[in-house]
């Protein structure tokens, strides 16, 4: 018996490998492979039907780039065994309904497309597919639903039409035309307030940046005008027309979209990224135009390849470069456009930013003769278009480019960009170059960058990072803390205890003291202690961390109010202002060790003394990592509190049912759970307060700028304004899921109708993302 079981497993494994691998490179033709496989499966159906259906279903969802290979296989199986075809359709429909209910829209999209292509393989009756599409389109007539809902259902239909349009046109022309008209009317009345928030470039020059549904609609209209003929989709079933024609077809059951509820998270809208057109491709095959359906199909196909291989960058590169119709299209250009399209996607890229960097390096390695040139051309174009590029994207561009350079010895034709050294430093181009230098320096070292870039760029190269310790500088003698600072330095060097350190700084006078009231913090103690400690630990991150850890109690004691914490941050800035990375890392540490609070960091970043730093990228690196830290903390406490509550409830139910509760299982007491919930409420309030502080400060500085410009009759649209207004936009987008929770509060407290329209507009665009 044992042998039987393992034999079964062997066969099942073999089936799985046969099915998942069909359509890969092979010595024989795809058609003969499919035919052979269909026969094998037919023979195994009596014993392994359930297993086979399950594997096929997985292939539908996990290998969407081989969709037509599998529809053909299902078609051949259906021709041989009608019941098996029917069972598969049933299974697929069940999973589609489930996916729509649970909001798995990505797989739902794939399944809709698969069902559509099954019409081509004579598995499904055309009319029944059209009925499903009609049900989807009817969502556009529902009252009081968010636009993202109807958008998704329309998108699901449109994105399947390149596969099945021709068949519907031939078999059901009248009904199909009717559907076309309904979609047309929907498209023409959609709101697009959200679009500006999602655009990579504010201008439509040289290429229009279209809203995704508008763009796909234009492509579909073109396809229709071409009598639904396209040139990209591989259709293996055409070779089996004779066999498939004989097969009996199934009618799809009614598939009605589950009704809307507040919990559902529909996919956010997008703007289609366009960087190249055919004139950018020097020779070889022509790049399909932006409204050609082939452009959509190829991009979609590349996106799907990335989606199924992004975890293995070598496989991903190999799969992208062996694209099926690679000789008929300018593949490298299309890959690069798709990769940057994802990297710049707003609110966030689908995968980790470093994936794109690492993948592009891999692609360069595999195609050393052509990929680096295309990438250089793309970089050049992105640079040329910086002036209108969204700040979040400029930041990602700088992060990617510095990383890329670090893998290619920092070689670049810098001279071509030397014009940027002659203009206002706050303009996007010089700013970008400065930030790239800073990031390159962080990945290598100061001298290396100095030696690498041309003389003319010297003014944009950052200062050499160094700790600045004022108590050892010339003129330190006249500072009130110098003597104590030196004493403290000696003591720390000879390994004093934290208590001994406290004793040394105890006698420092408080500059805030006066006769009337006792100040609530002591700037001089903070200054002397923190700067001395940081200076002594300045050798490396580890040294600094060790110093903070050892004297944690002193730092915590000194910074027991928000003003004190802000002063501590000010001191840190004074010591490390030439070493941005050190500031980023140290503030991260101070937050993690709870020496400073998130709100103190935010207030400090918006403070007057940081105004010279305000448009530098590191300030925003700190801001966003602070917000993220806060939300991680909230998430953690929320999870703990919920789990404890669940455990308590479960134990109570067991007791109520007269069951003994398990002695071993630790049951949290009611008080303990309540304490956890109280604590959660406190941090949730802190989080809300953090967002309120940030948005309020944004409104203050922007309003100030706008009214100052107005009273002086200046143009408000300065470089500074661009950085700041788009940082506001970024604060919404980067943390969109959280900010959405507070939208009501923000609307009633901060983004009220009396604030300047330029600021209000950013808020409204954000709100429109999900409405």
């Amino acid at each position, binding site marked *: 018996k044992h042998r039987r079981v393992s034999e079964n497993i062997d066969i099942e494994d073999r089936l799985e490998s046969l099915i998942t691998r069909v359509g890969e490179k092979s010595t024989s033709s795809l058609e003969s492979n499919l035919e052979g496989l269909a026969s094998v499966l037919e023979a195994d159906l009596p014993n392994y039907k359930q297993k086979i259906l399950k594997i096929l279903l997985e292939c539908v969802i996990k290998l969407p780039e081989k969709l037509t290979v599998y529809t053909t296989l299902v078609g051949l199986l259906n021709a041989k065994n009608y019941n098996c075809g029917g069972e598969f359709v049933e299974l697929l429909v069940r999973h589609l309904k489930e996916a729509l209910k649970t909001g798995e829209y990505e797989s739902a999209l794939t399944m809709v497309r698969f069902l559509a292509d099954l019409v081509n393989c004579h598995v499904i009756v055309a009319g029944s597919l059209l009925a499903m599409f009609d049900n989807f389109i009817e969502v556009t007539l529902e009252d009081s639903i968010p636009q993202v809902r109807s958008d998704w259902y329309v998108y699901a239909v449109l994105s399947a039409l390149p596969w099945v349009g021709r068949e519907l046109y031939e078999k059901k022309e009248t009904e199909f035309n009717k559907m076309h008209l309904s979609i047309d009317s929907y498209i023409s009345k959609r709101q697009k307030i959200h679009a500006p928030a999602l655009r990579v470039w504010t201008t439509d020059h040289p290429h229009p940046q279209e809203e995704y549904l508008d763009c796909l609609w234009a492509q579909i209209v073109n396809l229709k005008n071409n009598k639904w003929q396209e040139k990209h989709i591989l259709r293996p079933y055409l070779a089996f027309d004779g066999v498939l024609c004989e097969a009996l077809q199934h009618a799809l059951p009614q598939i009605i979209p589950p009704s809307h509820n507040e919990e559902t998270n529909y996919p956010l809208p997008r703007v289609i990224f366009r960087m190249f057109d055919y004139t950018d491709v020097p020779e070889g095959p022509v790049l399909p135009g932006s409204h050609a359906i082939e452009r959509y199909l190829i991009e979609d196909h590349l996106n799907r390849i990335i989606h199924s291989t992004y975890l293995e960058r070598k496989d991903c590169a190999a799969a992208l470069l062996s694209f099926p119709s690679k000789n008929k299209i300018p593949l490298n250009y299309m890959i690069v456009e798709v990769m940057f399209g994802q990297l710049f996607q707003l609110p966030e890229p689908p995968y980790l930013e*470093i994936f794109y960097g*690492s993948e592009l390096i891999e692609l360069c390695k595999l195609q050393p003769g052509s990929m680096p040139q295309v990438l250089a051309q793309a970089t050049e174009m992105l640079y040329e278009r910086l002036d209108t590029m969204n700040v979040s994207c400029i930041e990602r561009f700088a992060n990617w480019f510095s990383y890329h350079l*670090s893998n290619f010895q920092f070689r670049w034709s810098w001279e071509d960009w030397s014009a940027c050294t002659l203009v206002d430093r706050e303009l996007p181009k010089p700013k970008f170059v400065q930030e790239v230098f800073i990031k390159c320096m962080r990945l290598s070292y100061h001298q290396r960058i100095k030696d690498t870039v041309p003389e003319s760029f010297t003014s944009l190269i950052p200062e050499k990072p160094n700790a600045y310790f004022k108590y050892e500088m010339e003129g330190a003698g006249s500072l009130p803390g110098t003597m104590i600072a030196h004493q403290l330095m000696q003591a720390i060097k000879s390994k004093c205890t934290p208590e001994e350190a406290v004793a040394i700084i105890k006698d420092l006078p408080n500059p805030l003291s006066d006769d009337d009231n006792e100040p609530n913090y002591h700037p001089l103690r903070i200054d002397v202690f923190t700067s001395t400690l940081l200076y002594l630990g300045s050798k490396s991150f580890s040294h600094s961390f060790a110093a903070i850890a050892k004297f944690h109690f002193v730092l915590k004691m000194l910074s027991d109010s928000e003003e004190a914490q802000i002063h501590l941050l000010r001191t840190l800035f004074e010591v490390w202002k030439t070493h941005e990375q050190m500031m980023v890392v140290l503030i991260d540490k101070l937050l993690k060790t709870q020496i400073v609070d998130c709100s103190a960091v935010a207030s400090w970043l918006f403070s007057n003394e940081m105004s010279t730093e305000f448009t530098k990228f590191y300030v925003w690196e700190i801001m966003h990592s602070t917000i993220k830290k806060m939300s991680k903390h909230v998430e953690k406490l929320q999870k703990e509190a919920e789990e404890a509550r669940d455990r308590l409830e479960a134990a109570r139910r067991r007791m109520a049912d007269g069951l003994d509760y398990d002695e071993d299982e630790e049951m949290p007491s009611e008080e303990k759970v309540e304490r956890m919930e109280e604590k959660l409420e406190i941090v949730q309030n802190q989080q809300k307060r953090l967002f309120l502080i940030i948005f309020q400060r944004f409104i203050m500085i922007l309003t100030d700028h706008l009214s100052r410009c107005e009273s002086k009759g200046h143009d408000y649209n300065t470089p500074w304004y661009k950085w700041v207004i788009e940082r506001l936009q970024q604060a919404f987008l980067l943390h969109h899921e959280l900010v959405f929770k507070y939208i009501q509060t923000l609307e009633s407290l901060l983004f009220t109708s009396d604030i300047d329209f330029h600021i209000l507009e950013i808020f409204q665009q954000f709100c429109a993302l999900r409405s």
Partner: protein
Amino acid sequence: SRTEQERLLLQSCTLYIGNLTFFTTEEQIHELFSRCGDIKRIVMGLDKVKKTPCGFCFVEYYAREEAENAMRYVNGTRLDDRIIRTDWDTGFKEGRQYGRG
């Protein structure tokens, strides 16, 4: 034991990084590896005798997934012009920072 070792490796959030130059600093390593996730700590490998960096380090993340990202995207790319290698490690213990002297 060997299975114990394998179990630890499967749960580990720590990577061993090799083929660094002797001059590569903790700061550079932090810059690169923090692009994959939040770093808990970096321990530089030191020469037993001279106590100077000797071409390897340990990077510990807070979450397994972040370490996996580094394995996926940083392993085999360059830092300071050297192709660096990342490997799973069972976790740093005091004393392991010293390489052969």
